[in-house]
């Protein structure tokens, strides 16, 4: 879940078509500078947290937040990831250990203030992560120890109530969909989290501010959901994946803020204008593609190379259409429970059957998808999880699927030209284009 669009380590840059994309990236750049001022210069208490944790709590308490995935992307943008992975290897961590969540730990262990972003992270008040895999608790435990602070883990409980069409009911029937005891567990854990934060930061949780935030998040995600609807139904696809991702993810990091709500509205309006004018992301749209998995952050030009060469447009990636079903919640006076229902399965619906395949198959149908490309990272069970069963479900629904072996943050195994050619060959083999890109 990167938001950086600055220089990358390898690959090719992407082209941005929407005016609001530049606004979003400029805002994020300024936010980075402001965050550094708060955390490093002013020494404000801050938290390091995974993307799938209740950021709303930190926002409502006005606690500065460094999201692990954002920090990783920031490190990557400084072209430091390869060096830090080498440091991990030098320290004896096997080279196959999961890289997606450990780059921040690697940066801290490297302990090189001269070259580290911000000179390295100062001591946070707390580290927070949901335990969605076997490795994250170990990464965060060790990171907290290295930073001299505490780790607050959050359970990722089993999910026995299975609704494959969860996305149709999650706004209103969220307690049933996400299982009442799972929702309650996270409510209880968040109460503990708030108590720890109050004790460690001196900040107070403001229920009224939190309620306002939750309402504003619903408004923001509503705009993004409208944009997703338009992008799925319009022909040609009005917005490339290179514009979809930053305009979804950057506001998502700031969800509920005045800027984020306004930006989501601006994005929705710009999408609507392009639909009305019949403007397409590609000059000659021939194939509508679905991208399953995290973005290839080190080669953002990969997607548009396929648009430019083959008229193969990535209509769908998970970030934008996720906003509607996984974020919008009818509050019903139960703000904390509504938030818990948003967070308690954020990872699971993207990586476990039946939720992953149920949603993605329905989305492929909604968006008129011709073929799907699945990113399968080699060393990460969680990121791989559910991809084969989802691929089979898509094939069953008439959508050809290609699995691409590659990592979202480690560029070592990725070759831009080879990957583009692999997709082109696949599309040719499945009769979607003639010839290949080679």
């Amino acid at each position, binding site marked *: 879940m990167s938001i950086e669009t600055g220089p990358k380590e390898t690959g090719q840059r992407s082209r941005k078509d929407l005016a609001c994309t530049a606004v979003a990236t400029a805002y994020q750049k300024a936010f980075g500078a402001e965050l550094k001022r708060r955390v490093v210069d002013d020494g404000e208490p801050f938290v390091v947290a995974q993307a799938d944790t209740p950021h709303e709590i930190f926002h409502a308490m006005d606690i500065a937040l460094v999201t692990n995935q954002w920090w990783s992307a920031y490190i990557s943008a400084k072209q430091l990831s390869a060096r830090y992975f080498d440091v991990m290897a030098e320290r004896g961590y096997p080279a196959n*250990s999961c890289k997606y969540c450990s780059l921040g730990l690697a940066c801290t262990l490297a302990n090189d203030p001269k070259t580290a972003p911000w000179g390295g992270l100062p001591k946070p008040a707390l580290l927070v992560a949901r335990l969605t895999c*076997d490795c994250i608790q170990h990464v965060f435990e060790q990171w907290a120890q290295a930073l001299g602070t505490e780790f607050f883990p959050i*359970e990722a409980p*089993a999910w026995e109530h*299975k609704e494959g069409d969860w996305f149709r009911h999650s706004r209103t029937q969220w307690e049933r969909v996400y299982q009442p005891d799972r929702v309650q567990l996270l409510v209880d854990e968040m109460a503990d989290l708030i108590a720890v934060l109050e004790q460690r930061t001196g900040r107070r949780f403001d229920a009224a501010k939190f309620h306002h935030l939750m309402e504003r998040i619903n408004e923001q995600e509503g705009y993004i959901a409208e944009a997703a609807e338009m992008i799925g139904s319009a022909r040609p696809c009005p917005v490339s994946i290179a514009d979809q991702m930053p305009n979804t993810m950057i506001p998502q990091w700031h969800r509920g803020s005045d800027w984020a709500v306004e930006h989501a509205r601006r994005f929705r309006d710009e999408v609507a204008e392009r639909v009305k004018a019949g403007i397409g992301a590609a000059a000659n749209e021939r194939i509508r593609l679905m991208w399953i998995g995290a973005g290839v952050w080190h080669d953002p030009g990969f997607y548009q190379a396929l648009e430019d060469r083959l008229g193969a447009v990535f209509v769908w990636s998970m970030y934008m259409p996720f906003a509607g079903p996984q974020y919008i919640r009818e509050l019903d006076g139960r703000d904390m429970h509504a938030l818990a229902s948003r967070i308690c399965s954020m990872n699971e619906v993207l990586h476990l059957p039946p939720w992953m395949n149920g949603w993605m198959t329905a989305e492929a149908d909604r968006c008129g998808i011709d073929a799907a490309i699945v990113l*399968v990272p080699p060393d990460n*069970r969680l990121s*791989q999880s559910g991809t084969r*069963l989802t691929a089979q479900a898509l094939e069953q629904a008439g959508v050809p699927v290609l699995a691409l072996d590659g990592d979202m943050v480690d560029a070592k195994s990725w070759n831009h030209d080879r990957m583009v050619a692999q997709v082109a060959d696949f599309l040719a083999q499945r009769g979607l284009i003639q010839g290949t890109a080679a």
Partner: protein
Amino acid sequence: MINLDTLLAEADIGFVGLDIPLEVLTANGRKACHLPWDRELPTQRADTWLESGFAPWTRRMLEDWAERRFDRFEQVVFTRGDDNAQRLYYYICELQKRGEIKGPKPVIFDVAYIRRATSAGRTRDALTGLCAQLGVRSDDLAIAAVNARRDVMTAWQAGRQGDGPFWERLTRASLFGEVVATPPAGQTARRILLAGTPPPDGRLHDAVERAGASIIAEAHDRSLNWLGPRVAEDGDPITALAEAILGRTTGARTFGDRGERLVAAARAAHADAVLLWLIEEEESEVWHVPAQRAALAAAGIPALVLTRRAWLDDITGEITNFLTERAA
């Protein structure tokens, strides 16, 4: 020592994960059997469903499931305390829904290891829920019987002096049913502690034996202590069981300093050296390799560290060289 197919034929319920309490599974005289991973057959069907990051044992289990080897069980319980096991649960549910496989009803044991009251409560609720799903009353839990098994196995471990392959077979057999054994005589001159990933069978123990030493204890999930700490036999049985489960020190989701823990295990076993062996698909223990290596070095305990290994690894050459160098 055992006939696995006989035990499978006699068992009433299956399980996947060593932190699922036998006290619940074997209540009311039920016989419980961990799903085996013994058959060295191609896993063609499982490979179409499971991604490369799954541990190899999951493929064999799923292939056997698809071939209806476990059909006689009404239920199979999977733990959430291991990522492979919990994902396998979701995959099997989905494959059954699609009609791709049949077999017993999958059940998940939602154990929660975080050291907070909310997680302890979740584990108690999970135990209560598991009892309800299996039709077991809390008064029926087989606490005393399983404690007796624990005591026998603890005594075996305390008296273990050599013949690593025998003890490996015995430990593995104990997952599939109750075992009786006469401990072998003899004492090894060179005592090795095995840590990291539980191996598929006795191949590591055999290799160490061939090199003139013996594995005399295991510091991973599948040791003679796999049943975990004793469960208090007075007071509320669910609370007692939850406390014992949360007192476990092995397993992917447990917390604590694994460097110190490994040194303590090596000292308790009077080990001359440690063999730390991890497979390519290992995702939890792998994060502790530097700390474990450093702790062992600080304690002056020699270690052979083998990471990213194939599950069906042959370490004969490496362990022989390691022990030869140490002897020189």
